[in-house]
């Protein structure tokens, strides 16, 4: 007799991302609860699993109790990509069970489920509206007996049974939770007018689920789970940046490269911190353009400015080569509207693009975009840290821009979050008032374990490109406010 452990057979749900958080799929012959308020996506999830099961050659039955009518349900499902009418009724079969529940009670309903599962040789059965069954049970014991009979049926037929139910229960006690193999909890809330849907694994017997909240997106593609980025990649822990030891990667701005003693270290992460209009984006584009000159692939991932506007700006100031790089497949300019997606989707999009292009240089323009897209602010630190870790792991030299709030504030706040903690270098760009003029200034605040020129330079952005000048050689306190020029002081 073999004492080797055989992993239990699992059935993929086919719901993108869901199988990742439930250890690969639902256990064969398992009984599961999917609970959540109306609108959370229970019905879509269940139908999607049915049609996936059918696409794998299996048969599914969908039994409704007090739920929406089948014709209404089909009306909603028709727009879903997974809904394949040709699978009905042969592979996916819909029946109503409430009449039976009303007339014959829970024993009658069990008989109905047993009959339809065996008659259709179903490998997946959905019971939609289990709250009705709970309400019709005279005692908790009766309801538990009903669940136990479903378990026996699942065991005998190897059918996976999914019970859909509203999560609200006045008593706060869910006896069914103790009887089933798993409980998936769906939520649907509003955050600043954005609908936020999540899924959480409350219980999963014999499995190692990814705990915690995961984002859910419902679209014409159906129900999609975005497992938390930080739960899939790295440990997500806030960690200090490692020392980058690679060769220097130049910006192609001679004065800045001199200040940096050649450029940024390969594999390092650099924050371009500055006020609005200080030139952060064009510095990022210049960094990519210089890389392309050296046959290094470059990815621009921006949140706020449309790529067409950025490219036009680059052409206007003589930053060339990016459009050609895009055409040759050496560069990619991506635009992600932060309000459009959940943060995990944006993170996945970024890292997918990194995997596809395999760039040496990456510019992320407007890290605040991640903040706008986040569901839970407390996650940002770990997400930034995870992204930093993924970029470092690939030896990518990354530059990201981060905006300061005020134009002339004397206090400069470096955002304290996962990414800034994992950032080796910080370059400050800001507006300064000098001799009755508003100028742009640049200073290097931090280059980890490398020498640099700490001087403040004026940024000139003209049709001929970006240059840095020693305009402020005789000035002081420029970046901290209240700046004075020595030439203007009475004693001078």
């Amino acid at each position, binding site marked *: 007799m073999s004492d080797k452990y055989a992993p239990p057979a699992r059935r993929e749900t086919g719901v993108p991302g869901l199988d990742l958080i439930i250890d690969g799929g639902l256990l064969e012959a398992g009984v599961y609860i999917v609970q959540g308020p109306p609108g959370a996506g229970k019905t879509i999830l269940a139908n999607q699993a049915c049609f996936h099961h059918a696409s794998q050659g299996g048969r599914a039955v969908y039994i409704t109790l007090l739920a929406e009518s089948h014709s209404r349900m089909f009306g909603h499902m028709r727009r879903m990509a997974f809904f394949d*009418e040709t699978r009905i009724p042969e592979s996916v*079969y819909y029946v109503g069970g409430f*009449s039976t529940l009303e007339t014959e009670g829970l024993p009658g309903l069990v008989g109905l489920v047993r009959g339809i599962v065996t008659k259709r040789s179903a490998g997946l059965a959905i019971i939609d509206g289990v709250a009705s069954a709970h309400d019709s049970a005279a005692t908790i014991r009766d309801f538990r007996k009903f669940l136990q009979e479903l378990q026996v049926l699942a065991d005998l037929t190897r059918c996976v049974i999914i019970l859909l139910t509203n999560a609200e229960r006045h008593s706060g006690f869910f006896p069914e939770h103790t009887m089933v193999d798993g409980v998936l909890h769906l939520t649907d809330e509003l955050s600043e007018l954005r609908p936020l849907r999540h899924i959480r694994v409350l219980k999963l017997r014999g499995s190692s689920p990814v705990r915690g909240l995961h984002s859910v997106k419902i679209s014409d593609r159906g129900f999609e789970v975005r497992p938390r980025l930080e739960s899939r990649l790295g440990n997500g822990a806030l960690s200090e940046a490692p020392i980058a030891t690679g060769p220097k990667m130049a910006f192609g701005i001679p004065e800045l490269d001199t200040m940096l003693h050649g450029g940024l270290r390969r594999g390092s992460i650099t924050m371009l911190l500055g006020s609005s209009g200080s030139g952060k984006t064009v510095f990022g584009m210049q960094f990519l353009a210089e890389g392309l000159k050296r046959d290094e692939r470059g990815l621009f991932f921006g949140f706020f400015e449309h790529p067409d506007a950025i490219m036009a700006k680059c052409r206007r100031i003589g930053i060339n080569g990016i459009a050609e790089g895009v055409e040759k497949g050496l560069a990619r300019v991506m635009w992600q509207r932060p309000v459009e997606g959940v943060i995990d989707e944006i993170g996945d999009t970024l890292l997918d693009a990194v995997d596809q292009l395999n760039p040496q240089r990456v510019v992320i323009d407007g890290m605040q975009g991640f903040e706008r897209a986040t569901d839970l602010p407390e996650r940002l630190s770990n997400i930034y840290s995870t992204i930093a870790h993924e970029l470092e792991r690939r030896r990518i030299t990354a530059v990201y821009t981060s905006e300061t709030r005020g134009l002339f504030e004397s206090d400069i706040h470096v955002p304290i979050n996962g990414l800034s903690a994992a950032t080796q270098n910080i370059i400050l760009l800001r507006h300064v008032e000098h001799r009755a003029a508003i100028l742009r200034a640049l200073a290097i605040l931090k280059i980890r374990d490398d020498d640099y020129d700490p001087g403040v330079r004026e940024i000139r952005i003209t049709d001929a490109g970006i240059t840095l000048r020693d305009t402020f050689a005789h000035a002081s306190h420029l970046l901290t406010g209240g700046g004075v020029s020595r030439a203007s002081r009475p004693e001078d």
Partner: protein
Amino acid sequence: MSSPTSILIVEDEYGLAELLRDMLTEYGYVVSLAINGRLALDILREKDIDVVVTDVMMPVMDGPELARAIRADERYRHIPIVMMTSLRSAVPSAPGLYDALLTKPFTPAALMTVLEGYLSDDAHPPDADAASA
């Protein structure tokens, strides 16, 4: 005086079955309800039924199975059968198995058009939303 027309509704969806019964009763029909094909056959044995209106997908015995049982029995094969379905693709295309098809959701007028086509003295074939099989 002729007896009132008797209609058998076979439908497993609770709300729809109740609605159809109430509506047809209002129109003066005598309505019997069954929640699956097997129970419908029990009713056919007990009552004189003029028209069977049946859903397609049901537990125990579905609409097509019921229709085949009715067509196979000399006592009932003359009874018109109207199939109701949300998906036309779910209805088998077997000639003579049923007489008309109603696609859910349908209006009361569409249902009455179909029924009157089989029940009234000046019977006429169904049209509008109904498709003759």
